[in-house]
């Protein structure tokens, strides 16, 4: 675990309840999703990346789409958000079944045969685990950034193509 991930885990561990850990820690996980998208998107000066990334409705899904989050990790992250949303709306709501499901997805994302566990699921540990693995992936991406985007072609035949299409459709 790198320094940031260890500090994150220590910070949320100091909070008194599982729900408090999720509520305080999830915004940092969401910020990490946006950092991953920034690091994974090819450099392109014409791309208004900050606006697009900042306004993306669900950066987690973009990270999943980019292959930086496994299916099980994606489900676990989704379910931690769901727990936080449910408890925020109704503090006494039963959420143990959601945490069970998140824990299952996280376990099997590591090993499909890890089907039973001796200990109870722990929302804080699940969150700190996701933060840790995603921090590692962010570090890897920053060490080897993606290649530049495909150059936009401005060859002369492109002008011919556009003019001919206009001529056809103006007939």
């Amino acid at each position: 675990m790198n320094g940031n991930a260890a500090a994150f885990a220590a910070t949320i561990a100091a909070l008194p309840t599982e729900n408090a850990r999720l509520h305080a820690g999830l915004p940092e996980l969401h910020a990490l999703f946006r950092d991953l998208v920034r690091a994974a998107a090819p450099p392109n000066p014409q791309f208004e990346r900050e606006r697009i990334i900042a306004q993306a409705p669900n950066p987690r899904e973009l990270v999943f789409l980019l292959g930086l989050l496994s299916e099980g990790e994606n489900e676990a992250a989704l379910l931690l958000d769901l727990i936080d949303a449910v408890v925020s709306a109704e503090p006494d709501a039963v959420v143990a079944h959601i945490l069970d499901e998140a824990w299952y997805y996280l376990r099997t994302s590591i090993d499909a045969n890890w089907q039973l566990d001796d200990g109870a699921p722990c929302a804080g540990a699940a969150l700190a685990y996701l933060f840790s693995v995603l921090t590692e992936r962010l570090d890897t991406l920053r060490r080897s950034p993606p290649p530049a985007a495909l150059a936009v072609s401005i060859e002369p035949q492109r002008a011919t193509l556009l003019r001919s299409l206009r001529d056809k459709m103006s007939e």
Partner: protein
Amino acid sequence: MPTAFFGHGSPLNTIATNRYSRAWRDYAATLPVPRAILVVSAHWYVPGTRISAAHQPRTIHDFNANFPPRLFDFRYPARGDRTLVERVVDLARPIRVERDETTWGIDHGAYSILAHAFTAAAIPVVALSIDRSKPAAYHYELATRLAPLRDEGVFIFGSGNVVHNLELAERTADAEPYDWAQRFDDSVRELLAARDHESLVNYHRLGPDARLSVPTPEHYLPLLYTIALQRGSERVSTIVDGFDFRAGSMLSISIAA
């Protein structure tokens, strides 16, 4: 009107002819012709209780690209039924059921059965989602509110699998089920026969076999929507049973007088 739970198995059952699809077809032939169909499928598992309200619900191909093109070409062109939608919204109160005209339609949990049981797609179909944020008891309670629909000619069915563990599935034809899968399937049958709905709702207390058989709840919960509709003198009968891939129970049951 009887009510049923179907173990739907692989999406390929939509276009297959096998002992499961034949049993679903033969069972439907014994039913009075429904006025409409209300389906609770494992594959509409989202936060919130929603009901498909489109006039012409879409056929949803909710599986990965490894399945054959013929399955992606499949369409189930049944109409929706706004009258049934409004009736469900009313019956469920104070539970809020959100009308959904755009995001969902008829998924493979529904049409893998419907394609064989109601081939002509002439009966309107409405889907009810499973609220992912709610515990099992909520689903049972919601379903009890829908019981009057059975007297109004609506065929209500759940579609899932009593045992469903994809991570441990083995794609070997005719392999024997895992011991834990068979034991859990047997336990569920015994609880159904004993009408022990409390144990079926609290399935997570049934030990390690349950934890392996129901690692995530979405394929099991449709069973609760079916049993919650059982009336005093009604009995449970088996439509078909068996296992696919060692870890997928194909048990289908009917509840009728």
